């Protein structure tokens, strides 16, 4: 029996080695990866709702739909974030990506996929964060079709990729994903242009006959300095009862994302966006925008500190982030995050402190953004201190 085991192991070693060499050469490679994350976020307001969202959007005083946070919504409790399983098959000419996510943050990230083709309240489409394939026509030109993460913004859904665990308001009020097709042309390793046509923003199905146009210009002015200029233009209004598009409805978002690696340890990043939305012709376009500055310092390979300051302006009230009474507002957010890498890079710990500050609504009887321990909306700021644990494979 032992000899059989020895010989089997030796044979397996030879076969495995041969397969690994094949994968490197002609047959392409298959990668299976993913992560899961969980967090505990203490809120110094000790809100009765046990929520970091605050009130506002969706109705006065509604404690669960304030949108002050994207994913780290629960206060004072252990919470599961997201489970990801990602499969990538790559050959010299093609790439296919199946990126499936499950859990509370997956549902929040894929909120536009809840209605299945049979009209059910849930569907397997909800699990699809990304599913696309790319054909590399030449070394410079490639085509992609399917559902893919948005090109807009500095941050992504994936917690291991972001430095801060808690997501920015720019992320939360921008697109998450698109379904459509795009072409990318790399002029060189210093410049590339992407142009595409997609259904719309964050929806499995198109809500009208109009298509959205997306574009991204990438330039690399110097080594370590990346600049992305992003845009999307779309008609986001649901079609009329007769199936026709709403005339004059328009959504447009310009976004700048850039980062510069000053030294091997120190990185600065900037994200700025300005958007406008018009519900129909004859109505005024309402705008929103903001800017975030990121700075990260890697003290060692396994330990770093990052600071993010963000200002977000939704005075027009067109986006989801509102004050406690559902009106337009501005917000200043300051986040300090440490990144601790353990277990050969598989295990990440992110202790984090964040402050969100909204203008105080003056006058008696006003509903401020955040609830206190008695459930009264008396607070216009909130501070949270938490720890996120992420395991990636």
């Amino acid at each position: 029996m032992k000899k059989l085991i020895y010989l089997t192991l030796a044979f397996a070693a030879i076969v495995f080695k041969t397969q690994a060499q094949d994968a490197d050469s002609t047959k392409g490679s298959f990668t299976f990866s993913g992560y899961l994350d969980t967090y505990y976020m203490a809120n110094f307001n000790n809100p009765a709702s046990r929520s970091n969202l605050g009130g506002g959007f969706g109705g006065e005083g509604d404690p669960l739909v304030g949108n002050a946070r994207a994913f780290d919504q629960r206060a004072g409790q252990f919470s599961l974030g997201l489970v990801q399983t990602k499969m990538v098959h790559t050959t010299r000419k093609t790439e296919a990506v199946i990126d499936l996510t499950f859990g509370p943050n997956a549902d929040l990230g894929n909120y536009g996929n809840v209605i299945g083709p049979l009209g059910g309240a849930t569907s397997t489409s909800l699990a699809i964060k990304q599913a696309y394939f790319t054909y590399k026509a030449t070394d410079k030109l490639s085509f992609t079709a399917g559902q893919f993460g948005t090109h807009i913004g500095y941050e992504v859904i994936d917690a291991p990729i972001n430095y801060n665990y808690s997501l920015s308001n720019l992320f939360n009020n921008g697109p998450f994903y698109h379904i459509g097709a795009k072409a990318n042309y790399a002029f060189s390793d210093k410049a590339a242009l992407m142009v595409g046509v997609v259904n719309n923003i964050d929806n499995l199905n198109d809500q009208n006959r109009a298509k959205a146009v997306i574009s991204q210009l990438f330039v690399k002015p110097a080594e370590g300095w990346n600049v992305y200029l992003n845009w999307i233009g779309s008609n986001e209004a649901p079609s009329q009862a007769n199936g026709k598009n709403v005339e004059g409805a328009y959504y447009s978002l310009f976004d700048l994302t850039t980062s510069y690696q000053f030294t091997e340890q120190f990185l600065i990043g900037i994200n700025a966006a300005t958007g406008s939305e018009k519900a129909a012709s004859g109505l005024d376009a309402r705008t929103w925008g903001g800017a975030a500055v990121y700075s990260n310092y890697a003290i060692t390979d396994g330990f770093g500190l990052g600071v993010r300051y963000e200002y977000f302006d939704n005075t027009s009230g067109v986006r989801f982030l509102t004050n406690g009474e559902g009106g337009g507002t501005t917000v200043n957010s300051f986040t300090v995050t440490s990144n601790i890498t353990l277990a050969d890079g598989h295990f990440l710990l992110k202790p984090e402190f964040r402050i969100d500050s909204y203008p105080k609504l003056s006058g008696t009887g006003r509903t401020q953004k955040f609830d206190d321990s008695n459930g009264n909306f008396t607070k216009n700021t909130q501070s949270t201190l938490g720890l996120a644990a992420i395991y990636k494979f």
Partner: protein
Amino acid sequence: MVARIVSFKKPKPALFFAVLCAGLQWTCAQPTAPGKLVFEETVKADSLPKDSLHQNAKRWLASRSFAVATDSASGEIRLLAANAQFPVYAAGYVSKKLSGMVHCALRIEMKDGRYRYRFGSFVFHYYKEDRNYKIVPTGKTKPLEEKTASGWQKTWDAHQRTVQATIARWTADLKTEMARQTTPQPKAAPPPEKW
């Protein structure tokens, strides 16, 4: 004739590991300078003039995607200096992921009947997944001569073994290519003068 059945009642562990290592090609080059990650050797090539060695070396460098930085001749020595990079991977549970690229330098000095190669300047370039899900360089580097890597020691040790295995493979290939008997190509005759 009676066929004899060979019995492996007590397989030797050493034999097993020899077979296993052969399967995995665990051949590692050993650094030739103490404390430094340098691999150098002087190799005799009795019947080959330096120009043939130079041709062989250039062919080998091209086949391995080396970027030639210096190609010079000084007295009885011809010199080729080139740079290369190769990927190193982090072991996944199901599949591997790109961890970074190792950049290195190679210097080959050639005389009639012998040559000397020297692999050195091994530097690991960190890569990470960016917001477009592409694995891209971070701009951060780490000399392979460093022994410790806080938080990712196992992967770092694996990268050092990969470097030694790669150099072992490359030097074996290089020696084979350098031993090839070739005659230097005659210079192209000048075109006939037009008149």
